[in-house]
């Protein structure tokens, strides 16, 4: 009388039917326990229940099979051969070497600075900056007195007199030139004009002259007598 009343296939179908109408399939519960089952962390009772479910559920069987496969495969992925020359590359990149003592390294610092690619750009920049600053500085005036050294002619007094007259004439002309060159601002309290201010004054004068000049006759006015 211990014979089962139903054949095994019919028994499985009946189990599925009953589970479908009661708790639903137990696959989700198995998913929660699958990792612990694969790692052998379940006690014997829970392990037996999992085995019982696996015997009748192909999808959970394949899932547990994949888990077992990954558990065996994943540690082998920890190391991958980077190729035959990798160690040499790393050693070449990391080994300390003394700096090469060739002729280039013994050149002085100014030589190395002069032979940089940016030296022309830097020189141009410095020149432009110096020109800009210089255009705003006051223009230096010549010294007030021009010293003429004493001159004694070895031939005699008459020649020396002539020479002194020449020297005095030169001194007068030099002083006159100095007076003409000396800017008015030097004598007054006003600051000396800069090159920028002078050029601006020159530009203003040119503009005034241009505006005050009579306009050239238009072509239309010339043609008007011919074509009234």
């Amino acid at each position, binding site marked *: 009388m211990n014979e089962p009343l139903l054949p095994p296939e019919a028994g499985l179908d009946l189990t599925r039917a009953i589970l479908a109408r009661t708790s639903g399939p137990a696959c989700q519960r198995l998913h929660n326990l699958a990792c612990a089952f694969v790692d052998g962390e379940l006690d014997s009772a829970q392990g037996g229940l999992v085995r019982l479910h696996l015997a009748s559920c192909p999808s959970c069987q394949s*899932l*547990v*099979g994949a*888990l077992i496969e*990954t*558990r065996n*495969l994943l540690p082998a992925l920890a190391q*991958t051969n980077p190729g035959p020359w990798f160690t040499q590359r790393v050693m070449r990149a*990391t080994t300390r070497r003394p700096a090469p003592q060739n002729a280039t390294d013994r050149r002085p610092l100014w030589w190395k600075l002069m032979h940089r690619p940016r030296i022309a750009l830097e020189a141009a920049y410095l020149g432009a900056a110096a020109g800009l600053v210089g255009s705003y500085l006051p223009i230096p005036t010549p010294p007030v007195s021009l010293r003429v050294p004493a001159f004694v002619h070895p031939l005699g007094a008459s020649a020396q007199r002539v020479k002194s007259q020449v020297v005095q004439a030169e001194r007068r002309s030099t002083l006159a030139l100095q007076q003409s060159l000396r800017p008015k601002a030097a004598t007054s309290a006003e600051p000396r004009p800069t090159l920028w201010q002078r050029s601006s004054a020159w530009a203003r004068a040119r503009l005034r002259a241009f505006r005050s000049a009579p306009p050239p006759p238009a072509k239309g006015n010339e043609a008007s007598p011919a074509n009234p």
Partner: protein
Amino acid sequence: MELSQALPLVRRGDELAWEFFVRFFQGRVFGLAYHYTAQAEDARDLAQDVFVRIYQNLALVPDEPGCLPWIIRITRNACIDHLRRRKARPPLWDLPAEELFDLRATDQNPEEAHLAAVRKTMVHRALQELTDLNREIILLKEIQGLGLEEIAAILEVPLGTVKSRSNRARLELAQKLCAAGMGG
């Protein structure tokens, strides 16, 4: 020679010990970089950069229990920097992942070696389909064999998150492999 014996010499700058150190860790560093970048050449350059960084900080190399997590942390940071740069300036071409696993010398017969390589490639592709956190947990726990606390410190997430995500990530990977036809 054991790694624990070599580490003091490495810290002192002994070149032979450094070569031993490079040979000892190069497979792990390159493998981790390859899993992050999926490009062999990028992974090779990154692994070299990692060793150069380590060499510049030789005095900071910790003793053996903490040495591997330290190296993995440096490698991960370098890979994440690289991926950020690549995202900002993507390369003109992007080749699929190469079949690197054929490079390994094995004692298997050719058919078994081929099957093993195919399975590893499938696992690698399934890993690329996981979310970032799940993939990193698989990489660090299942592949590199780090502990949960070390992973939490490296990823800067709570320990409970790593614990709960660990089994979920394994399950997700297994489901993707099942969908690819493996495990049946």
